[in-house]
């Protein structure tokens, strides 16, 4: 069991030494091939200008967004956002359309391109190690990290800790906690000494990305009903008009007598 109400990670790019132990730990814990890892580390090389040179390493990982775009996009609802943070994927529902990969702004979900129809090709992404966190342990990647570049805990506390760290070393950090508000907030928070763009992170608005498409989707049913009603009315109107036109033409053809008759009958 766990007391944490909203699970989250904090990644501190200044502490990462590019040892990639987290990748190995995740692969071992979750039995994943190394080339399909759920967490990947990229050395970004040396940035800046002499003499102020910096090197950075970024650990990419599912952000466990508060408003997950993968979940919004998946047609069959294979994703779930748990109230306490984790965004998880259910292979039993997935049809393999890969729309979630398109939708995720961080390019997180991965697909089995090497599996045929017998094995079945699925999506894979970080699960937040439920088998560990719900047993009071840290996720495998976090526990392995030798420098505490990856930390795990309550989201609010981690945000507080991050801001405290920035306040304590304003010269070392950029004054921003990536993920606090991005895309409506994420559960993977990032501290950095180089601009977040250099870490390869997209610049995202504070409103969730999927807001626009979800609004459009909300309008679908009312629109369909309204449009159907309009079309029905139009076709009924045109039909009635056609009938009237046909009648009057018949009358013209049959001469005045018919016209008189019609008038009388009216």
């Amino acid at each position: 069991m766990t007391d944490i109400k909203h699970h989250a990670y904090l990644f501190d790019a200044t502490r990462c030494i590019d040892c990639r132990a987290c990748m190995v730990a995740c692969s071992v814990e979750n039995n994943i091939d190394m080339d399909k890892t759920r967490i990947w580390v990229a050395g970004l090389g040396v940035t800046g200008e002499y003499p102020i040179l910096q090197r950075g390493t970024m650990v990419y990982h599912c952000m466990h967004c508060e408003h997950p775009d993968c979940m919004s996009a998946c047609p069959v609802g294979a994703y779930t956002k748990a109230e306490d943070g984790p965004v998880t994927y259910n292979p039993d529902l997935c049809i393999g359309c890969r729309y979630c990969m398109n939708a995720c702004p961080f390019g997180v979900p991965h697909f089995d391109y090497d599996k045929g129809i017998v094995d079945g090709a699925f999506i894979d992404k970080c699960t937040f190690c439920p088998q560990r966190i719900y047993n009071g342990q840290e996720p495998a990647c976090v526990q392995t990290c030798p420098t505490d570049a990856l930390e795990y805990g309550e989201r609010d506390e981690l945000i507080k800790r991050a801001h405290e760290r920035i306040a304590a070393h304003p010269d070392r950090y950029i004054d921003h906690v990536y993920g606090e508000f991005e895309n409506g907030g994420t559960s993977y928070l990032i501290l950095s000494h180089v601009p977040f763009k250099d870490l390869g992170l997209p610049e995202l608005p504070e409103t969730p990305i999927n807001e626009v498409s979800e609004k459009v989707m909300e309008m679908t049913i009312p629109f369909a009903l309204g449009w159907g009603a309009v079309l029905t009315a139009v076709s009924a109107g045109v039909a009635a008009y056609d009938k009237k036109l046909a009648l009057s033409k018949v009358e013209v053809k049959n001469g005045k007598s018919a016209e008189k008759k019609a008038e009388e009958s009216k």
Partner: protein
Amino acid sequence: MKLNITLPKFLRIGTLPLVLILLMAIAAVVAFTRYAFGIGAISDLSYSYPWGFWISFDLFTGVVISSGGFLMAGTVYILRIKEFEPLLRPSVLTAFLGYIMVAVALLVDLGQPLRIWYMMIHWNHTSVLLEIGICVMSYLTVLAIEFSPVVLERFPKLHKAAHLIHRYIMPFVILGVVLSTLHQSSLGSLLLIQPQKLHPLWWTPILPILFFASAISVGLSMIILESSLSSRYFQRGLETHLLAKLAKALPIALGVYLVLKFGELAIAGDLGYLFTSGIMSLLFWAEILIGVLIPMIWFSIEKNRTSPNALLTGAIITLLGLILNRFNVSWFAVKHPDPLFYVPTFMGNVDYFPTFPEVAVSIGIFSAGIMAFGLLAKYFPVFEAEHHHVEEVHETVHGLHPAPTPGDD
């Protein structure tokens, strides 16, 4: 007015069907490889480019070129402009086959093709793709119903059934138009979830409206194209006077689309990108010029609307331009997160370029569609207006109804 030459049956099996069969065979081999060894074995799709040629061509293009069906059904049944009846059946058939092709192509593209029906029972209400899936499946059913009289009429015993369907067709026609409106526009909504990936020249909240507006022009052009081609191939008369009317509507439909498109860019303040985005600006202008401006001018010239050759040329130009738009929106203008950072080289390809087998699958499916159209048009009364119904309504009214086509059924 009409040139009616009886179709020499069984004679016209020439090079075209042979080539089509060959292309289908290649696609079948590729598809087999894909099912055995995975999508990666035949395509260049990767973690960074999960959607490629298949989605742009099979889904986006396939759906939009099938929009003639609902346009004609709406015109003939809802607006009751009966003179377009000769164009109705071929358009409905094109749409029907078009959507079947989309569905077949998806069976290759999906990771779990056997689960395609999951979309019918597991609904995620926020997913645009779900709406498209449901609409396409339902619309396929509607099209089957709309087209069924053609098949039934072929057999004298089933005339009654054909008549029955014809009598209760209205609800299906209306449903078909609603479903088409929904999913033609929703294909645009698919991209709404990638504002930071799709270039701002194309990403706009009104993408669904733009998609629907351009689908109308594509539908009109497709009807012109398919009538022209089949009149050549089957050596039957061409309804030039009808096509001329469609051609006259094209500049209006395209004009509305143009105003919407540039109006949105102006309001969003994205006009600057028109000249500053390098290849993206170029693609944008290519699509506008070929798909909108040139056709608007072309079809505004009276002479071009009455000549079969000019009609065909104009339709092809329009289609090329508007299909380029679909490719732009779904592929060329989509930039996935910087692969340098996100996808270390061992995890996938950084660039995407469709492989030969990938394209071969789509071409094979397309060939099957053309083949099916040819066969159905040959053995079923596709190119005849529904005589009895037309007569029923018109004969009593106008004395001057054109004589029914001498039978080649």
